[in-house]
């Protein structure tokens, strides 16, 4: 997926969101040191960090784009491809793993008809793995956006995903 980045269509970055990002960057004293925070804010605003946006940030704070890309690609929290409206994250912590996260993952792939790190055709869901979310008491756990669902199994995942359809 990463190798296709250079071939990706340039995207138009909405001006209103860029202004919000600009205002945030200007409010910081140590802009370079706060790069990770800036990227968090940018991903929150735009949903993902396409190459053009990385370049924009690099120019705003006066550092090479390669440095921004180096940070974006290093941390798993950042994504360079567009995600669906909701992100379904299967917790792959050890507690979830020993209690059957693998089966939950397979069931979700089947239910949503996508592979890992892929987005459904209707752009509603992106399915991904996540490192431990610390809800080990509820293992196996699945997180949709910021909401945690516990004790998941092949049967009850459908109830969860369908609660996001048509909303």
């Amino acid at each position, binding site marked *: 997926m990463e190798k296709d980045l250079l071939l990706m269509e340039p995207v138009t970055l909405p001006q209103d969101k860029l202004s919000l990002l600009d205002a945030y960057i200007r409010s910081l004293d140590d802009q370079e040191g706060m790069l*990770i925070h800036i990227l*968090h804010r940018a991903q929150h605003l735009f949903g993902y960090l396409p190459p053009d946006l990385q370049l924009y940030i690099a120019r705003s704070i006066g550092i090479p784009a390669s440095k921004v890309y180096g940070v974006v690609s290093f941390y*798993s929290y950042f994504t360079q491809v567009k995600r669906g409206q909701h992100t379904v994250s299967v917790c792959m912590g050890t*507690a979830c793993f020993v209690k059957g996260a693998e089966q939950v993952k397979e069931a979700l792939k089947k239910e949503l008809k996508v592979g890992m790190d892929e987005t459904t055709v209707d752009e509603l869901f992106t399915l991904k793995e996540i490192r431990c979310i*610390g809800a080990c008491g509820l293992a196996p756990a699945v997180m949709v956006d910021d909401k945690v669902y516990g004790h998941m199994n092949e049967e009850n995942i459908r109830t969860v995903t369908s609660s996001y359809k048509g909303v």
Partner: protein
Amino acid sequence: MINNRSELLEIRKNQNEMRQLREIGGGKGNRIELLVGMATCGIAAGGKDIYDELETLIRDMDLNNVDLVKVGCIGSCYCEPTVQVNMPGHAPTYYGYVDRDAAGRILHEHVLQGKILKDKVVPMSFNRTDPAGARKRQFRIALRNCGNIDPEEITEYIAFDGYEALAKVLTEMTPLDVIHVLKESGLRGRGGGGFPTGLKWQATNQQKNPQKYMICNADEGDPGAYMDRSLLEGDPHSVLEGLIIGGYATGANQGIIYIRAEYPLAIARLNTALDQAREYGFLGKNILGSGFDFDIEIRLGAGAFVCGEETALIHSVEGKRGEPTKKPPYPSEEGYLHKPTTVNNVETLANVPEIINKGAEWFAAIGTRNSKGTKVFALVGKVKNVGLVEVPMGTTLREIIYEIGGGITDDKAFKAVQTGGPSGGVISAEYLDTPIEYESLRSLGTMMGSGGMIVMDEDNCMVDIAKFYLQFTMDESCGKCTPCRIGTKRLYELLDSITKGTASPNVLEQLDMLGNNIRNSALCGLGQTAPNPVLSTMKYFEEEYRMHVEEKTCPTGVCKGLFRYSVIPEKCVGCTACRRVCPVGCISGHPKQVHSIDLNLCISCGACFDVCKFNAIKKA
């Protein structure tokens, strides 16, 4: 704004009634309290709905003397949502598995009529009012306030002696006094390494550079451990207080909390706590009139396990890729922005105020000769009472798993327990009576780590577990040094070949050699410990490995790749479902005729077995 110690005492006195009620159901007032567990896991289990339900009911029933309190995690994750009822003159009652119906009954039966709901009561495996803790096994120092106070109300923390240690330090002690107490207490780092905290503080204190930093490592990356999250969500002020005391002792005026972005609730509660601490004058200029200045800011991580390593963490705080660097120089000499920096784990810092308040001797009397105090463990996996437990060092694994944890789920057979996360290893049944301390765990080939304790039963395959951890370290390797970047990938591939039945006969020797090479040559702690899950499972479960390699069978039936699939002709109706699902097209047969699998092409993925509605695929 609190200007001195006596004003702090005044606030505490005003809360005395509440403290009495909260601790022992004492006091003469007529207020009744309902404590609802609202940490991440509590909310996910429905705690918010229960809180809303109780709030509505209390309003509708005009119960003016009932207070609802949002508390953090009490540690009994298995039975959430939980509600604790405190009535004057009665010992606190804990309810678990509370649903809407039970919430109504708590108000109608317990609060109004004084009848305890026997079917919903859950036992507490610790006792706050019995400090010896002897009868209960658990003893809480770091988690002392978790589940007992509202983390968003600083006055509740003050009521339970909060910021008293800070006041004591600033008015009575020099930085060297504080370091002396810490050294005497024997407190060691709770994040994994176990380095003595007092020595770490002393090293930074001795540096001449006037600009120093104090960093709290809240990048809890060990999958299966969540004590730091619980602490920050349930009692953030105890961590702040420890950090401020550390700043005073080491000579730092700036504190940083580095926290994972995956913990949104903990971040929100930390921000609330920081605002309140500033408002009350525990942060800022001239704290409590002592002339000491200190402030704290939050820095977010972005998902990288290696950032738990202190040099990598410092780079990440600087906004860079979180790659580790060689030590020395240690952070205490050259850390954040090349200035002397102390990095302490969340749980370590939460212990500090109690040590200052109760004294080094009190702390040093708990635990074993070389491991003092208590340790919080996330007891998870195949155990009945999943949750956070805090026990004195020296407690045995058997006591934790069977007495506190209630034994194995569905009463299956215990197989192994994994400690230390991806840097640790497994411990088999014959070592269940080992007392837990830093050294004893290391001699068993594992480590304390941050305190994940994952219990596995007879259904878990050890090769599969080792493969799981290696996949983790392979993905999380930062790529800076070759032994870790390439070594973990090769280790993973070898393990993968074992689970698929394609391994060469000498694969175990290869694993052993490669594992030891990585251990000796990787740059940072993550790389050096990455082979531990493999080496320790091989050490204790060699027979299981041999069965995979030599007989190509997985005794637990987990490793799908070792199965051979065939069609049972009597059961096959020729529905073609298996033929359509087979990814390599090795199944042949016409509709309504018996199908067959070409074993030369079959990759043992098991798709046909899963899809067949007539149980006509045989797995052996």
